[in-house]
């Protein structure tokens, strides 16, 4: 009796969560959760505190293995894969508080986005093999372009740890953009951002989708959810509604469970 997911469309599913359940000790936190994210769409996941959002997020990213159910990325079940395996498969997450590399420059941070797409080993790097030097040079050039695009080129040589929260988020997004993930998971990306900064964030999320990245946006910020094609509402471990934001707003169950509470 799970709510019908929007799989009817012919679009390929980049993320397909089927029947995921999880419990901590005796406490059921997720029960028969189904969420689907078709290619290049922006899918939202909202729910009040304690609804199981974070647990579900951690299951999708691989920090937690679910008790039951499948998590498919590009049609392959990754529920038991490690975090690195998932990231090599094109899954990338951001963090509630932006996790930038504090002692590295902004440019180096963005360069790190390319890690999974480059291959120079320890020895090749040490002996400055031509292949390693070429790869590094092209990584740097490409990262610099990304910095320009995100409007942080003037900060390229600044240590990321010295930046204010809003810019740290931009650096994190630029790094994510450099990684060109198939599936981008954003964990409360608007936390700590000001109004205009959130507008910019909304713009970047659309850019990701328009360039072929599927986005799963986890947040309790209803305002930000406008950017989503489809929103899933999680309440006490179950998905109680799925649909476009406009429909979600009018859904009586959601009003009772979530909007009313807020």
């Amino acid at each position, binding site marked *: 009796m799970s709510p019908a997911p929007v799989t009817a469309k012919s679009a390929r599913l980049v993320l397909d969560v089927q029947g995921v359940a999880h419990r901590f000790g005796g406490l059921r936190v997720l029960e028969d959760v189904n969420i689907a994210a078709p290619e290049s769409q922006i899918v939202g996941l909202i729910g009040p505190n304690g609804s199981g959002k974070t647990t579900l997020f951690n299951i999708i*990213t691989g920090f937690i293995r679910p008790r039951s159910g499948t998590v498919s990325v590009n049609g392959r079940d990754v529920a038991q894969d490690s*975090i*690195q395996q998932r*990231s*090599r498969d094109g899954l*990338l*997450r951001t*963090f509630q508080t932006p*996790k*930038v*590399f*504090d*002692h*590295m420059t902004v440019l*180096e941070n963005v*360069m*790190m*986005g390319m*890690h*999974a797409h*480059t291959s*120079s*080993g*320890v020895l090749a*790097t*040490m*002996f*400055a093999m031509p292949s*390693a030097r070429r*790869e*590094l040079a092209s*990584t740097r050039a490409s990262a610099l372009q990304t910095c320009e695009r995100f409007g942080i080129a003037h900060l390229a040589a600044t240590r990321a*740890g010295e930046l204010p929260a809003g810019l740290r988020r931009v650096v*994190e997004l630029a*790094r994510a953009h450099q*990684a060109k993930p198939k599936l981008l998971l954003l964990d409360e990306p608007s936390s700590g951002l000001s109004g205009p900064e959130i507008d910019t964030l909304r713009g970047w999320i659309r850019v990701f989708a328009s360039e072929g990245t599927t986005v799963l946006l986890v947040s309790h910020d209803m305002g930000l959810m406008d950017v989503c094609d489809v929103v899933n509402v999680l309440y006490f471990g179950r998905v109680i509604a799925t649909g476009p934001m406009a429909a979600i707003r009018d859904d009586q169950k959601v009003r009772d469970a979530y909007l009313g509470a807020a």
Partner: protein
Amino acid sequence: MAFARNKLLIAAVAVVALLLPLLLQRHYVDVMVFAGLYGIAGLGVALLLGQCGIVSLGQAFFYGIGAYSSAYLCVTLGLSPIFGIVVGAALSALIAFIIGWPILRLTGFFLALATLAIGMIGGILFYEWDWLTGGTLGIGGIPTLSLFGFELNTPQRYYYFVWAIFLVAIWLSHNLVTGRAGLAMRAMRDAPPAAEALAVDMHALKTKIFVLCAVLGSLAGSLFAHYATYVSVQSFTVERSIIFLLIPVIAGAASVWGTIIGALFVALAPELLSGLGDAHQVLFGLALVLVVTLLPEGIVGLPKLVMKRFGA
């Protein structure tokens, strides 16, 4: 402008370094040779500390493996020195891999104390396995090295040889830390979850650097054995590991070039303080404590700290 001045400074230092053995007394050339030897071993520790945030207190173990491999293969088995150096490095790499793979799952204090325990186990084994190491009597009569028929049998000659190797090792490390692997290392030190999310295989990377550190330690140990021509357990204690660790701490671990300063410090400071007898060790320890307490970025960070406090 600043760049040209830097170049000039480097050229001046290079000239002094080249002329040094001709100007110094033999004893001080000897000290400079040890600075180079310790520097090579300390560079390995610097890579672990500065790039991966790992405190290694077991480097003397690998230093010992290199030294005993050279001593045993050359003296007891009568093989050519190159075998001792290569076997020592290979053995160190293998042991570092076998030990490193499990213990590098640990972090922070726990990892550091595990390396300390390994250093102590190593010291005890060198002592107990006297059939191999000669125990406290040690192994003497280790041949000096020769390079294309050129005997490296004086401190002056060995000075050039060891420092050339040290500088090459620094250059290789410099490439490493500024390249892809170095970025990944610093990323995992700064924010492990984010590095992992970007597909950095942290455990494999740490293990590789641990192995590299061990190989540098072993190489330094082999070179030490061929210079001193005599090795015994006293050279491979935990105190020696602490001295190797001091090199990056004193200099500021983030910079691989800083290990030169650290190496000069650990070799020269005891010499300068030796007039004080046993008290020089106390001052040496205090220097470490004061640097850790007052100079979080080591001597290399000193100008910045002074600027921040008094200047601009």
